[in-house]
């Protein structure tokens, strides 16, 4: 009977997850190092924190020209990395499910949705966000055009619209109002500033400046 119990226990252990193992082993380490800290460790969930630290991956990433060497959980999205880890809150979290385009950023020159990108898959990537567009106090031509044409009301979708608008021109998909509407369709504006957004993009396109 006793033997069976031990066997079952052992079997249970072998099935337990790596995370549980890390939690237990980190707790044991804390206990071995300084027994009095054990109570505090569990109160402050240090075991959780240690387990999380061990379960992160290292990431080298360049954001708006600045290189960062970070440690991130595999599940961290690029959007959360920008907003929570790097405090670059210009990139907005709208739906967080790839339906609104508010989180649009450029990765290696291509517009993508940062909410559906895992940060851990962006090793050595060059990321540009809305914060990386202006040169000192001089706004980017697309930012200027959005102000001139009143391309927003509440402004929440605007960073995504501007990042998408720049890419739309660079990709060669801004040759008519219809084409701009089609290739900007991934950026939803609930205030309905679409007409003015198309005006802004058209003006920047016709201005012919290098973006």
């Amino acid at each position: 009977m006793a033997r069976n119990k031990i066997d079952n226990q052992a079997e249970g252990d072998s099935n337990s997850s790596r995370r549980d193992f890390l939690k237990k082993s980190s707790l044991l380490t804390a206990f071995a190092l300084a027994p009095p800290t054990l109570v505090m460790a569990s109160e402050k969930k240090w075991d959780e924190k240690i387990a999380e630290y061990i379960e992160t991956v290292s990431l080298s990433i360049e954001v708006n020209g600045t290189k960062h060497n970070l440690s991130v959980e595999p599940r961290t999205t690029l959007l959360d990395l920008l907003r929570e880890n790097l405090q670059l809150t210009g990139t907005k979290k709208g739906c967080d499910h790839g339906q609104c385009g508010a989180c649009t950023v450029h990765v290696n020159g291509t517009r993508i949705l940062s909410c559906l990108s895992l940060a851990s898959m962006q090793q050595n990537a060059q990321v540009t966000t809305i914060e990386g567009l202006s040169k000192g106090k001089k706004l980017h031509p697309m930012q200027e055009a959005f102000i001139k044409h009143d391309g927003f009301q509440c402004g929440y979708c605007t960073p995504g619209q501007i990042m998408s608008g720049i890419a739309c021109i660079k990709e060669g998909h801004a040759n008519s109002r219809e084409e701009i509407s089609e290739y900007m369709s991934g950026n939803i504006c609930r205030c309905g500033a679409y007409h003015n957004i198309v005006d802004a993009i058209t003006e920047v396109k016709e201005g012919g400046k290098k973006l």
Partner: protein
Amino acid sequence: MKNFQIIKALSSASAVSGIKKESSAMFIAGGTNLVDLMKKNVVAPDKLVDITGIDLKKVEFLKGKVSIGALAKNSQVAEDSSIKENHPLLALALAAGASQQIRHMATVGGNMLQRTRCPYFYNTDMPCNKRVPKSGCGAIGGSNRMHAIFGASDSCIAVHPSDMCVALAALDATVLVEGPKGKREIKFTDFHRLPGNTPEKDNILGEKEMITYVEIPDNKFNKNIHYLKVRDRSSYAFALVSVAVALDIQNNTIKDVKLAMGGVSHKPWRLTEAEEFLKGKAVSETIFKQAAALAMHGARAYGENNFKLTLGPNAIIEALTIAASK
């Protein structure tokens, strides 16, 4: 989202070996559907194998066919000048799907493996035989405006959401896959399956197999083609009904024709009966109407999607008319 391990594979062989011993491991490429499903806790893998570093990204024109790497991006294929020239139906269908941001991320293989957008599949509080086998179907007798009219079962009336796949089904493509038991080829029209009693399986890909290439045989469908997508807004929405048409017209006679529909079934729905009827006939509105009527044989609606029984044939007639007039 539950946390997970992530490893990077640099070849298809190492990707397959990286996944084979872990029951809940999955491949990840573009992530446009998988990351979303993980956020909703619809799937919760313990390990992801990042396959984006594998050299499967080229579009290559070989003797008698074009070979498209499974990791080629949707936008890359849609804007490839040779694809636009030789397989414009595929370029049109790709451009009709999702948004440009998502097309920049999503891969050809991932597009084929995307899950249904049935709201009951996404909502873990609701029954769904596809998500949890034997839990019931919320869409039958529920909200089913987007759902199937062909090939559905008492277990599932969900539709496959892809546009790209409708064109590939029409163009007689072949899927190349690799797994622990080696490589094999699957006819594109056999790749996706009907729900039957096992709607949890979207396709016939083995559990540890990965798609490596999609091949399209050379054809004459570079002019009279059309992809008509009917949806709730003019862009960035899934199809209510879509129709892919490829015609080879000589002296006003239809020498060859390929027809497939999207948004109507658990798989891209090929209209073989209508194709056979159209072959050898002179182009006319009458035969297009007759072909559309033939295509609707066996259609069955479920309440909110009754309108598809009218929209379907009308879309077929419209798509054929536009393709023939190009």
